[in-house]
């Protein structure tokens, strides 16, 4: 909690970074709206008409703004700079401390992400939730973005034990998230086998899961099943991160020594 508070304060201290995280997402949203408006026109693609596609993209904006706000560069730099060696001497669990910082950083972006979403809803008037229950379940499913984003970022930063820079890994991770979350192109448009691959990975819960619940593409039982899958991934990624950490920490070399 203390780590989360510090990360939160640190994040809101740098208002420009904060602003830019919304700007990035806002730009992607506008570009997505322009592209899909052109493609869908008055018809529909993959069961999405223009109204529901707008809702889909706005949900994607909200989730990606949150997911990209975590302090993953701080985590990566701790390993790259060798600070991790000092962390090992501290009586604090590395993963738990980083989780605190990461989620604290994400919390700092919540007001901006929500404000951006409200503005987008007012300006673009997307389709509403299919039912009040679906709306509530959507919000609940969005909460799992926090542990899921951390779990994935943590695995990504662990790569820094064997590489010298984080940038390439971050791009690979971000592109996996963008593609398999359905942010780049809805999962429903993919061929059957690729949909299977996407649903077998955790990334799908960043956009497709909340959007499917919101738009009523799954019934209540389906929604609860998806939320259970989110919870399972959240725990699974934490355990996986712990197992990999145990192997990699033996490799720590600081400044080549």
């Amino acid at each position, binding site marked *: 909690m203390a780590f989360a508070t510090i990360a939160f304060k640190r994040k809101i201290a740098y208002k420009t970074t904060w602003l*830019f995280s919304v700007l990035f997402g806002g730009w*992607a949203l506008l570009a997505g709206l322009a592209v899909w408006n052109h493609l869908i026109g008055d018809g529909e693609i993959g069961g999405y008409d223009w109204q529901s596609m707008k809702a889909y993209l706005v949900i994607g904006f909200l989730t990606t703004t949150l997911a990209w706000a975590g302090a993953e560069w701080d985590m990566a730099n701790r390993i790259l700079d060798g600070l991790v060696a000092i962390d090992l001497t501290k009586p604090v669990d590395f993963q738990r401390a980083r989780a605190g910082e990461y989620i604290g950083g994400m919390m700092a972006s919540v007001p901006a992400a929500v404000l951006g979403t409200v503005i987008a809803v007012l300006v673009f008037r997307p389709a509403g939730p299919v039912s009040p229950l679906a709306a509530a379940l959507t919000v609940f499913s969005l909460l799992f973005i926090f542990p899921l984003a951390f779990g994935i970022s943590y695995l990504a930063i662990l790569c820094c034990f064997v590489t010298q820079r984080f940038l390439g890994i971050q*791009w690979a991770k971000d592109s996996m998230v963008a593609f398999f979350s359905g942010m780049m192109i809805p999962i429903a448009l993919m061929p059957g086998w690729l949909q299977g691959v996407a649903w077998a990975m955790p990334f799908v819960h960043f956009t497709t899961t909340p959007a499917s619940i919101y738009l009523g593409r799954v019934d209540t039982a389906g929604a609860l099943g998806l939320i259970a899958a989110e919870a399972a991934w959240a725990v699974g990624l934490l355990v996986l991160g712990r197992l990999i950490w145990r192997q990699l920490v033996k490799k720590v070399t600081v400044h080549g020594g």
Partner: protein
Amino acid sequence: MADTQTPAIAVPVRHVFAIYWRTWFAQIRSIVEYPADLWVMASAGAVWNILQFAFLAVLFANVPDVAGWGYHEMLLLSGLLSVAGGCNALFWDGAWSTGAMVIKGDIDYRITRPAPVIIQVGSSHIGMQSIGEVVFGVAMMVYGWIGAGIGFAAIPIGVLAIACAAVIQSALVTALCAVNFWIKGQASIFAFLMIELQGNAMKMPLGIFPIAVRLVAMFIVPVAFINFVPVAVVTGHMSAWWLAGIPAAVVGSVLLAAGVYRLGLRAYDSAGH
């Protein structure tokens, strides 16, 4: 003795190139020492491109064309953008470190050395994801080129377009990273913003975007000349006259990068101030 007889300006330019290549090859030597790093990063670059390919394949399984552009033409757009980004990372990745060097006072060392600071910073790193980006980007281009039926005659234009794209991309990134001389921060937010803009908009035909976006991409931050204009010309979507804009964009962006960097160095006040 031969050196003293050459015009004064030629010596520094040759010196600059020599410094650049020496540093660049030193980076290559250090990369070879860490093969795991190399493979992880190269695969990261490959993943990015394979997913771009998949995106277009899925998109065109559902729609026949985007604003009159076919699958293979769009592959060319994405491929050229990847190659441009890859060349930036391969030959000029150090520019991304400008912000970190300013904060840590690392620019101090560079100022004291007898070579232009911008050359030393630019060649200070190689982004190894570039290997995956360039290889798969070129593969996308070749596949798109053949599929779009462009033919051999236009290949010189394609090669020239790649070279110009690499220079414009690197120069614009450098200019935007140099903003960190004034706005202090590790991350080069403005350069990231440009990459984001390109990733979202420049993989698509510019025609689907509002006029303001088109004007910005063509004339304010000339990212359109990196991939959109050359591809639009070889595929017949734009008149060949637009090709003249590419060298202009090269000169403009290089001058901009050098100018902003020079002003930035004047404003630089070392670490801790």
